[in-house]
């Protein structure tokens, strides 16, 4: 009862921190813009005013993309950790990001028309994530040990990285440059008119994830117990892979591969909330992931005029010490 109250309080606290982080993110750009200009950019947009363009086309899409990326990757990480019953699991560790990267590399650098559909990058990233997700899933039917499965995921990641290196070596300069830019990861490439499409896919994946909260809680008890509770293991496993591939592929397509969030945020949430209940963990990962990446992106923006830091580097620089601190603190207790 006490822990339920505590967790509700913590969730409330996250909800309070959220707007503070969001407002700070809006104000973090290099160009100083007054709050009244922020309002004017929406009420009376002037396309010849650089400040209006910066607000509507630069800061707003970047902020929304940061929130969506942080939330999606954290929720995917949580579901993967539950599915494989291993805190090290996550879309990056299990090679799902690598699948996206491989297919984007094939799409950009080989010029094979089969991969160059109307959706271009997005479809390549989604196909890659889905294929690698299915490979991991099919292997998971035969390999029961979580550690072995993680090792297989790491091998898949290494294998696809090696293939990407070969493709990079053989590709011509412009394609190589495009791929290099994509793989560095960035939140500022999304345009405002792409946001509705991204948001719809995000909502679909997120809604699906929330609909399987009950089976996810049953998975925590173990597969045998989950079967006894009437859960269709195969169906839920497939759904987790589908939602994870959809969300990871979507974010990877638009922002490049972003590491660490899927691993760190769910673990941080579990340590802080001290629960295995996905009714708490899922919304906490969703909000926590958004806050975490928004804070990291504030650092990226504040330091950009002196040191150009990629978002990938900042998420690890901030996240790794946080995770270590909480683990040490928990062990000390």
């Amino acid at each position, binding site marked *: 009862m006490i822990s339920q109250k505590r967790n509700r309080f913590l969730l409330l606290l996250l909800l309070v921190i959220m707007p503070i982080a969001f407002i700070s993110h809006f104000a973090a750009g290099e160009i100083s813009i007054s709050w009244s200009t922020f309002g004017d950019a929406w009420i009376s947009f002037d396309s010849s005013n650089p400040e209006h363009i910066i607000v509507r086309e630069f800061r707003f899409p970047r902020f929304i993309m940061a929130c969506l990326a942080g939330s999606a990757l954290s929720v995917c990480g949580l579901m993967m950790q539950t599915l494989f019953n291993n805190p090290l699991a996550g879309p990056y560790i299990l090679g799902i990001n690598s699948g996206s990267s491989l297919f984007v590399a094939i799409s950009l650098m080989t010029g094979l028309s089969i991969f160059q559909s109307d959706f*271009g990058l997005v479809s390549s990233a989604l196909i890659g994530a889905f294929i690698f997700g299915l490979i991991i899933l099919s292997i998971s039917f035969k390999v029961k040990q979580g550690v072995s499965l993680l090792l297989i995921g790491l091998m898949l990641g290494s294998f696809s990285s090696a293939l990407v290196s070969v493709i990079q*070596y053989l590709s011509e300069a*412009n394609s190589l440059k495009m791929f290099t*830019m994509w793989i560095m990861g960035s939140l500022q490439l999304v*345009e405002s008119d792409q946001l509705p499409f991204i948001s719809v896919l995000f909502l679909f994946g997120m809604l699906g994830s929330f609909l399987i909260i009950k089976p996810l809680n049953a998975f925590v008890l173990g597969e045998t117990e989950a079967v006894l509770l009437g859960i269709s293991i195969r169906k839920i496993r497939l759904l987790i892979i589908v939602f994870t591939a959809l969300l990871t592929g979507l974010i990877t397509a638009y922002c490049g591969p972003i590491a660490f969030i899927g691993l760190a945020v769910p673990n941080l949430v579990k340590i802080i909330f001290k629960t295995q209940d996905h009714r708490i963990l899922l919304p906490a990962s969703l909000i926590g992931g958004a806050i975490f990446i928004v804070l990291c992106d504030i650092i990226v923006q504040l330091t950009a005029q*002196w040191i150009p830091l990629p978002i990938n580097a900042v998420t690890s620089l901030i996240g790794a010490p946080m995770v270590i601190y909480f683990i040490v603190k928990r062990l000390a207790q």
Partner: protein
Amino acid sequence: MLKNSRTVDYFYNMKILSLVLILSAVMFSCDSQKENDNLTGENIVRYAKYLRIIEKGNLTTIEILSPETGEAEQTLNLTKELVKTNHFLQVPVSKMAVLSSTHVGMLSKLNEIDKIVGITNRLYVFNEELLENIEKGKVVELGEEGQIPVESLLKTKCKTLIYSGFGKEYPYQKQLNAAMVKCIANYDWREVHPLGKAEWILLFGYLTGKEKEAKIYFDKIENEYLALEEKAKKLKNYPTVLEGNLFGESWFAPAGESFKAQLLKDAHVHYQYVDTKGTGSLPLTLEKILSDNLDTEHWINPGFPTKEKLFTFHPKLKYLGPVTKNKIYDYSKSGNRYWELSAIEPQKILSDYLSIFHPTEFPKKNLYFYQEVK
């Protein structure tokens, strides 16, 4: 007694050691003096900051200077006599591996493409003769500059390996020196004046025994460059120009003291960041670039040949002034030509710039490196 004897031995040994040290120091200082004596001749290099060439009798000494310290990083003593020591390099060098496109360009201007036996990757080659030689198996592809397969290189029996200097020894330098392959750093890419880059052709001239041809070629391009610069000085208008592109989180624009900024100055344009310090690139945020360049007229070197490719990754760049004015030019007219020849033909870059930025005074007849990004 024993103790005393040991003490005497100790002092005796120390005396001997001191004598050896003093003699060594004297000999070393004599050697240094000799070396310095060799370098007292006139340096024939005028623009390149990191290259010194001194001719004295039959011996030519070439110093590659460190861009960081200005001190000699490598000293090459070239001789036309037959030598079997690593202290001298016998010229003309019959076979060489070159690990940068600019090196290929310089050798092509001396008609010495046949001397090349190793390059990094055929994808970066523009020269047709070299491509043919690769096809015929006369030239090996060595891959990444810092990770070449040493045995493949040795199999070519090359005498020198020329790489883009980076302040340290080449990764396999000791092994290659032992195999009588001289590794030579090239800092043309660090030069800050366009003619300074081009002047590195003298290094290739001396190595191939075509120093006279190299000097004649350099004098020719120097005259052409300076003549164009002089004409540009008489222009009255300064069109605004943006240079560079977004990479990751930052836009990398040439700093005010860089080679690219110098070319823009010589092309008589207003470049927003011309007063900044530094010889490399300035990392700028996209917001800063947009707010500074909403009305800028031209954009040069976006790094992509078509708008489609450019906007695939950077759709937000459509708000920049030059995009709305349709004045974007890129160096991608002929594949790898820019990478191979721009260092050795700076007068042609300046000529292209003048035609792009001042089309009335310098009509666009036929751009050499550049084309409009459509």
